[in-house]
């Protein structure tokens, strides 16, 4: 009598759930090996196939609090494999934050503690946990890594959750991307209906009242995009980067069109959050259709 799952819970999970009965423990042991030997190495050499690749956890999901307008520095985490995969989920303590981004500085340090490589990533911070997570991977560039998490918001604290795995995979470049998981919003930015965030050729239809402005955050992306916008009323459009302290390109516009009912462009984005803003002052409500094509998948 009972239920036999394909991926039975581990002994530690059963213990944590208060279910570590002798029967259950024996079940777990028998699942590990029908003929256990003295060491794991012996088991592999005599009964199994050695793992030539795989993943190990470097940092289980850990949350860091970053006070307003300040920086939190994490511990150092040690690598033994050539590649890393990372999960970063940032979120603000209030939906009223005015600069909802976290600057994640990645410092790769050698055995003597010298920084020999560094990357900076600006990740959007949503109003709630797990709403705008970023998944990344790349080459391990030193023995240890350490993060400096900067919160530029002048009023509200932020929380950043990070998990890291290492792997024998060897990604050629650092590649961090938003996940297509956006059900919440980034404070101050218009929810995009999970449209542009998907990153593939999508048509996003928005209703824009007269006198209103909507701001859509694009996900982290590096490369060319094709953007076509049509509107039933004349609107003004700007594509650029949001204003974020210390972010390259902060507040800069890279393309605009004024008082148009259709416009298109091809621009290159620089793997920081890009911002599409459009304003309707035509006197009537406008229906705006936005088509975005990313040359490479985003999510």
């Amino acid at each position, binding site marked *: *009598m*009972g*239920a*036999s*799952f*394909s*991926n*039975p*819970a*581990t002994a530690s*999970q*059963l213990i944590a*759930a*208060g*279910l570590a*009965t002798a029967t*259950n423990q024996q079940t777990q042991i028998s699942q590990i090996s029908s003929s256990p030997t003295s060491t794991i190495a012996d088991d592999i050499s005599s009964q199994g196939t050695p793992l030539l690749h795989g993943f190990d956890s470097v940092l289980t*999901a850990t949350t860091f609090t970053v006070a307003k307008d300040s920086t939190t520095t994490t511990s150092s985490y040690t690598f033994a494999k050539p590649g890393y995969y990372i*999960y970063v989920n940032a979120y603000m303590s209030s939906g009223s934050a005015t600069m909802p981004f976290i600057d994640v500085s990645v410092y790769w340090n050698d055995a003597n503690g010298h920084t020999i490589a560094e990357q900076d990533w600006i990740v959007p911070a949503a109003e*709630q*946990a*797990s709403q705008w*997570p970023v998944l990344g991977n790349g080459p391990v560039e030193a023995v240890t890594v350490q993060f400096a998490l900067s919160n530029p918001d002048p009023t509200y604290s932020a929380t950043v959750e990070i998990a890291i795995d290492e792997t024998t995979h060897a990604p050629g470049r650092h590649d961090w991307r938003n*996940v297509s*998981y956006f*059900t919440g919003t980034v404070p101050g930015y218009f929810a995009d209906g999970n449209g542009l965030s998907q990153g593939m050729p999508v048509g996003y239809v928005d209703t824009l009242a007269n006198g209103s402005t909507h701001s859509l955050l694009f996900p982290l992306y590096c490369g060319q995009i094709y953007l076509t916008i049509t509107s039933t009323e004349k609107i003004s459009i700007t594509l650029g980067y949001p204003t974020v302290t210390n972010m390259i390109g902060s507040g800069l516009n890279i393309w605009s069109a004024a008082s148009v009912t259709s416009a298109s462009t091809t621009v290159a984005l620089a793997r920081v959050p890009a911002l599409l803003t459009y304003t309707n002052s035509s006197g009537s409500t406008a229906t705006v259709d936005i088509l975005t094509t990313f040359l490479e998948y985003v999510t």
Partner: protein
Amino acid sequence: MPRTVQLSASASVTLNNSGDGQVTLGPGIPGVTWIPETAQCIVSSDLDIPAFYLYLNTATQPNFQGASQAGNDDTASVSGVTLYTGMTLVGIWTGGTPLATATLVISGVQTVPGD
């Protein structure tokens, strides 16, 4: 004569901010009996993969039926369990993705009162 018909029932819950949640499933109509054959646990997001625990009636150790470390998507064969009116299967997720939707699907056969 009671009739035997297919059983397919499900219940969903939104996991809380800690990624935990619980659902119960069982026959609610007098005279109906469930004989589950499989239990499937599914979660709408696997960013954090939850553990899943299945119990009969109440979440206590004597009623433990099985557990999975892949509570985001796993299926178990269920044996030796018959649910009469008022009895339930209790599915519990822990450590999943906050605010994700978790669903327990019970399949098998059920007997219903006949003519």
